[in-house]
């Protein structure tokens, strides 16, 4: 076995037997990833840092017969660790001891005399206790600054720690300022020696583009047009592959069930496996995959161009009033694709309080699993009441209205939470506007398809499989002459009636893993079927809903509202847990929207009753 293996394993390196481990460190948006991609091409692993929710990229480079494992560390502003990203970078460099770290790292800082003396004194003590320690003086400064991880690393030297604590009290409070100033002064000296700048043309061109994109006249229209274009492309391109995929996957279901029949497998086993488990899986994949595979690359192009931070910049005022961060506009946009992806995207917000706000309210943006329900209800109820030439317009208008309600609820909920449950969380605004870049198409396809689409899809599949099974059981196991699903619907009927719906709200409970299967479950219950069915299975959906089940316009409106506002799907709840690792925030993330959904629909139902509309 390679003697280097235990060490590289401890670093979390996945490249087998590298000759050298090289870390890339530096500020965000300084081209670290560009260097990384240029050197490694597609020979990369991506994933998360162990136990952390920060993306990690590792790649391999072979040069003159040597194998280099390259690790792209999270972008950090400094090693004075203030965020998880910075802690990871610091730990990797300090404790992982890569063979080489590519970074503009200050060697000898010109700090003020008192600080320099204190750091030197500690460096002498450290050197005596740990001979051969590199950058003892820097570690001395970290001790003066009270860095807990560095303290733990030298906990053997109790006298050193005590001396550091005593020295800290002799320094004035602006100690950290001096340190950062010194780091920048040193960086400037290095830059003056090593960097050549050729002209200002790039900056001026960028500046001109920025003036247009953020201008009073064009800023907001350009933004709305861009986002509308992305959604339009997604919706119009996703339809055909979605239908083809559904056709193919459901054809497999039929073949599978038929084959089981020929083999003499009992019908209930064939039903459970093919019409339950498999059907849930097929449904989620065919509805989710095509729109995400189109939406995420488009969105990543905008991200790669550098346009998205400008959107956050344009809208920050609005979000600031709600106690939130302008970047929440981006995580909300991502939520239109998938709320779980929207929750993951909140990593771009590096202020803890604002990030939590964005996580907890993301579900108020309807994801593409809920759009089909909204569109269907809008066309069956709103549009059907109008002459044909207005129908399409009215249906589109009501969907837009629902989205607007979602945005308003997001802002109100953000405002409320930032002043109550989240008030004690740390907060600091930062928003960098990186230079515009030419998008790297291969990289975009890779990150958006592998990291986003497949990642979210795998999570959704893991929750859809048990759900499909359970839904089939509920639809097929009888108890006292009725199926369990019908019984559950009957049980929840009074609650449903109170909010202007009926017992079908139980579909929201059992279809919690994915919003895609809410409507098929509703239709299953109404039709008394044993498996989920789509709206295509009905010749006249309106007759079924209005005629057989007494739906009114209020039922349709409230179902749309409930679908918009209710608790996030199981995948998103899981993702909230994965991102926050907090039972408290996960529970709030699920229950606050549920409470809002009941409150709003109860209000509209009560209002409608008082006014005598139903």
């Amino acid at each position: 076995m390679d003697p280097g293996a235990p060490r590289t394993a401890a670093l979390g390196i996945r490249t087998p037997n590298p000759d050298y481990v090289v870390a890339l460190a530096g500020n965000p948006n300084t081209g670290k990833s560009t260097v990384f991609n240029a050197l490694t091409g597609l020979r990369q692993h991506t994933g998360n840092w162990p136990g952390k929710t920060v993306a990690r990229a590792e790649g391999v480079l072979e040069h003159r017969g040597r194998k280099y494992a390259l690790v792209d560390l999270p972008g950090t502003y400094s090693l004075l660790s203030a965020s998880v990203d910075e802690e990871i970078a610091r730990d990797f460099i300090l404790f992982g001891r890569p063979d080489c770290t590519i970074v503009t790292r200050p060697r000898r800082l010109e700090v003020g005399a008192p600080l320099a003396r204190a750091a030197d004194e500690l460096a002498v003590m450290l050197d005596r206790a740990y001979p051969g320690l590199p950058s003892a003086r820097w570690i001395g400064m970290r001790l003066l600054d009270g860095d807990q991880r560095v303290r733990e690393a030298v906990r053997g030297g109790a006298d050193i720690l005590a001396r550091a604590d005593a020295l800290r009290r002799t320094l004035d409070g602006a100690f950290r300022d001096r340190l950062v100033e010194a780091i920048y002064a040193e960086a400037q000296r290095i830059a003056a020696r090593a960097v050549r700048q050729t002209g200002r043309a790039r900056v001026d061109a960028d500046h001109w583009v920025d003036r247009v994109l953020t201008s009073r006249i064009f800023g907001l229209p350009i933004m709305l047009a861009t986002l509308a274009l992305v959604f339009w492309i997604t919706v119009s391109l996703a339809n055909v592959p979605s239908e083809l995929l559904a056709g193919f996957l459901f054809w497999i279901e039929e073949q599978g069930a038929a084959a089981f029949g020929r083999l003499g497998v009992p019908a209930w086993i064939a039903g459970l496996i093919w019409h339950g488990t498999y059907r849930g899986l097929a449904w989620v994949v065919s509805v989710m995959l095509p729109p995400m595979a189109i939406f995420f690359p488009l969105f990543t192009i905008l991200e790669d161009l550098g346009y998205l931070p400008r959107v956050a910049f344009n809208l920050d005022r609005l979000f600031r009033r709600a106690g939130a961060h302008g970047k929440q506009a981006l995580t909300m946009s991502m939520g239109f694709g998938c709320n779980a992806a929207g929750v993951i995207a909140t990593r771009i917000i590096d202020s803890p309080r604002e990030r939590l706000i964005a996580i907890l309210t993301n579900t108020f943006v309807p994801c593409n699993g809920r759009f089909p329900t909204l569109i269907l209800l809008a066309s069956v109820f709103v549009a059907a009441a109008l002459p044909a030439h207005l129908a399409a317009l009215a249906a589109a208008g009501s969907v837009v209205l629902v989205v607007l309600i979602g945005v308003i609820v997001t802002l109100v909920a953000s405002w409320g939470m930032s002043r109550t449950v989240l008030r004690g969380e740390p907060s600091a605004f930062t928003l960098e506007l990186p230079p515009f870049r030419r998008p790297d198409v291969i990289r975009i396809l890779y990150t958006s398809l592998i990291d986003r689409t497949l990642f979210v899809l795998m999570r959704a599949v893991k929750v859809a499989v048990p759900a499909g099974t359970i839904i089939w059981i509920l639809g097929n196991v009888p108890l006292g002459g009725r199926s369990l699903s019908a019984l559950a619907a009957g049980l929840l009927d009074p609650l449903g009636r109170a909010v202007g719906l009926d017992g079908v709200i139980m579909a929201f409970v059992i279809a919690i893993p994915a919003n895609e299967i809410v409507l098929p479950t509703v239709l299953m219950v109404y039709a008394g079927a044993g498996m989920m069915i789509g709206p295509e299975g009905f010749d006249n959906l309106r007759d079924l809903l209005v005629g057989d089940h007494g739906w009114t316009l209020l039922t349709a409106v409230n179902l749309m509202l409930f679908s918009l506002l209710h608790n996030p799907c199981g995948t998103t709840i899981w993702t909230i847990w994965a991102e926050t690792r907090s039972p408290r925030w996960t529970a709030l993330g699920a229950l606050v929207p549920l409470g809002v959904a009941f409150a709003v629909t109860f209000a509209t139902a009560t209002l409608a009753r008082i006014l005598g509309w139903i």
Partner: protein
Amino acid sequence: MPVTLESLAARLGRRTGAVLRLVERMHADGLVETGPSGLRLTATGNDWALQVVRAHRLWERYLSDQAGWPLADLHAEADRREHSRPPGELDALDAGLGHPPHDPHGDPIPTASGDLERKPSVSLTRWPVGVPGEIAHIEDEPAAAYEQILAMGLRPGAQIRVIESTPSRLLAEVDLAQHSLAPIVAAGVAVRPAAHIPTPVGVPLTALRVGDRATVSALDASCQGLTRRRLLDLGVTPGVTIEAALPNPFGDPLAYRVRGTLIALRSEQAQHVIVDPTTITRGAH
């Protein structure tokens, strides 16, 4: 002044009966004893009290620096939090804040081992007229007087000079503005000899219009914690040239160019960045 049940009850705003039960329990736990001049803390009681004071002041520091709470709200919330968290969490909090020596009111924070720094300071009412001093501490109780002091803009660390002191009124100059204080209010302000740190002179960054450039002279002392750290990390340090580069459709935030990078600052952050007015060069508008 002897500590009695009655004086404690008056200070805590509770009935004497309730305070009696409290003192009995503390007595049973060995935290208080009866001395020649009334009740007093035992050595154990004193250690406990210092840890509660430490918790209170660390939480005030946290709420002010990290969560951005207004000074007037700190005391009540820190009162709630000071008893509820385990000591281990307190050490982590202390480390996370970078072992701050003082709370936002200027009071020293005891260390984990119970050391408390004591710097001599006197009440503003007894500070000699005309001698420059530095505000060492502002008492946050009673709340009404504290809010009045805050409303005048007085902060720990601010330079102060008493212009006139009479039994009915005290006139003081703080950061070039004159304030008149009732003696009862002035008693809550403690002053010590001025340190020899020149106060930064200048105008806030918000004074720049788009296209203007200036040199940063300092970050405002009231800007601490995460916000200060982020500003420093982004390269907003004294001596750097900063340019107001880009407005947005609503006028706020504004994007500034510093060290070749474009960063957006909200107006409440830009206010904390002090620039040297003599270095402002007006750009084309």
